């Protein structure tokens, strides 16, 4: 299931605020909910607030379904009335949190357009992943194993809400690690069996051949989880950092079986605590998606660009979204490079209305002509970095005022070369000056 509309009656800077979260007319998915959404806008316009509103509604629905409560105060009532339209296989339904006044008092309650939510459970169920901007990255993963908290490690695979405001993201590493350790243990056991056969001269060549073939067949048929993790997920992105997942099983001491290891491309192992902030972040945020393989889920992601070099920022959205089947992602970002991964209708730009003080969505299509793909004016995917920063992020002029003065200098030099009477030597000298300044300005001489 996916969210096709969000409505907030009054909360902070939002008032009577509706977000249409479907593909526009003319799109091959017209009318269906967006697969990914990107919130952008100046600090304080409420990007994180929108992620929180989605989270609060979904958590409340979960509570309602699990506990079967009706009309019970859920969460903070200062959110006011708000709702989401949920698009599921049998249709679309509005579920919200409303202030309800009844004879015996007022309640803040989950309510569903027409049906009883509990009955809808099978149709609208899904997982929620929430990545806040200030995820606490553990400094050292190995140490976790000894922590008492791990004893109570919930079976994350069965959880419906994976909220990294509460979970230590390092726990996921342990969960995935279990399958890796299991595979390694099996490989060692099987290797020992074969060597036992080989050791004893009594065993026939046929027996040894059969055991060898069985072993080979097992390895061929059983995907090695660490190889899959490396080839299909992590190596694609950490290759940029000159790193790769160590896939070979080097057994020297028992600790070698215990964890996923990262090494430089030249083979040198890097202890987890020595990895950079950006590397840790990519690995730790990707692992839950890889390990839990979300399906029909809603995934909230605040500031995915944190601590990442620009090249990874351009790829990070495709990287995350490739890991979740039929899911809906909501990102909030300040990065023009992250925004370049989105179609125009997938971007929700928030702006202050200076008169009302409220926040509104800046529409990217010609409102008079209607919400149709042909009427969109801003295409982040078609733009250069300059274009995105100026057209999408409303930056004025260049990153530094010094550029303008140097451009005037260049225009003057060119005009002098063109209009002043110069000797061939002076001409050549002026031309070289022009080439040098143009190069500093990255200005292409035309």
């Amino acid at each position: 299931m996916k969210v096709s509309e969000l409505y907030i009656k009054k909360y902070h800077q939002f008032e009577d605020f509706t977000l249409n979260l479907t593909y526009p007319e003319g799109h091959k998915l017209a009318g269906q909910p967006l697969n990914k959404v990107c919130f952008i806008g100046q600090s304080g316009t409420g990007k994180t607030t929108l992620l929180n509103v989605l989270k609060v509604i979904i958590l409340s629905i979960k509570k309602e379904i699990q506990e079967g409560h009706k009309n019970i105060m859920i969460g903070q009532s200062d959110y006011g009335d708000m709702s989401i339209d949920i698009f599921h296989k049998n249709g679309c339904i509005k579920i919200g949190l409303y202030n309800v006044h009844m004879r015996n008092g007022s309640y803040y309650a989950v309510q569903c357009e027409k049906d009883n939510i509990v009955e809808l459970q099978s149709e609208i169920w899904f997982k929620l992943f929430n990545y806040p901007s200030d995820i606490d990255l553990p400094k050292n993963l190995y140490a976790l194993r000894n922590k008492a908290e791990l004893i109570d490690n919930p079976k994350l695979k069965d959880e419906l809400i994976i909220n990294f405001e509460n979970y230590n993201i390092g726990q996921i590493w342990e969960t995935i690690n279990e399958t890796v350790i299991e595979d390694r243990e099996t490989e060692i056991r099987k290797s020992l069996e074969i060597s036992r056969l080989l050791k004893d001269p009594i065993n026939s060549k046929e027996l040894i051949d059969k055991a060898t073939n069985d072993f080979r067949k097992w390895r061929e048929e059983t995907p090695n989880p660490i190889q899959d993790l490396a080839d299909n997920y992590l190596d694609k992105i950490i290759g940029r950092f000159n790193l790769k997942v160590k896939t070979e099983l080097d057994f020297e001491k028992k600790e070698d079986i215990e964890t996923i290891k990262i090494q430089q491309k030249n083979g040198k192992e890097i202890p987890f605590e020595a990895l950079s902030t950006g590397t840790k972040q990519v690995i730790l945020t990707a692992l839950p998606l890889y390990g839990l393989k979300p399906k029909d889920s809603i995934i909230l992601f605040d500031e995915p660009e944190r601590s990442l070099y620009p090249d990874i920022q351009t790829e990070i959205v495709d990287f995350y979204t490739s890991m979740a089947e039929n899911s809906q992602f909501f990102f909030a970002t300040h990065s023009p490079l992250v925004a370049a991964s989105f179609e125009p209708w997938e971007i929700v730009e928030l702006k202050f209305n200076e008169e009302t003080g409220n926040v509104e969505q800046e529409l990217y299509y010609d409102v008079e002509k209607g919400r149709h793909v042909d009427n969109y004016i801003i295409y982040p995917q078609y733009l250069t970095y300059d274009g995105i920063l100026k057209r999408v992020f409303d930056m004025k002029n260049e990153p530094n005022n010094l550029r303008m003065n140097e451009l005037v200098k260049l225009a003057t030099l060119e005009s002098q070369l063109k209009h002043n009477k110069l000797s061939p030597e002076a001409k050549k000298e002026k031309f070289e000056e022009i080439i040098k300044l143009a190069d500093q300005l990255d200005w292409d001489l035309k």
Partner: protein
Amino acid sequence: MRKIDKSKILSAVYKKWEEALENNQEHHPQYTASHRFHKDIVMNLYHIQGGLCAYTEMKILASEYDYDEANWIKGRFKKGKSKHLGQLEHFDPKLKTDYPKSWLWDNLFMVLNEVNHEKADKPTDSILKPDRPDYDPYELLDYDFEKHIFFANIKSGKLSQSEIDRINKMIDVLGINFVKDWRKKYVSERIKALEFGIIPDPAEEYMTAFEITRRNLNL
């Protein structure tokens, strides 16, 4: 930056007051946007400037009806607030901050908010003052159609190196190139049309950039 002729006075009450101050060599009252003549001056300037920023020629007042002559009654502007992007700018900032002459008609222009903000209290040189009687943009300025910036006119050969430097300095101070990205789009589309043999509608803003380019390209 077009040449501006400020002789057309619609806000006559203000002008009389200003002239009295000047004739009597009185200090002007401190400059404030809530002064009773503020709107009269703003709208008279918009009338003269055709709704464009005096320095950048960007359109900063949307509707020309807002500054229609009919909105003045007995020398005062009578219409309500207009939606615009401009601020009342003092060409020479010293005449504002020391306020002996904060309301001097000759020193006032309507310009784009950001241009006024960036200009702040940088000292000015009247070599580029749009209402100076002998100001001629085509003589002083050239337009680079690749970078979409104005710069001192070298091709005429009439300007000395020191004049060239003064002009380039003032282009920076007045923020004439601040709008280059908007201007680029507007001017390029019109020039491109000319090149394809299509006659564009008359330019509504950035006419100096368009005209210099047209001449430079012999179109």
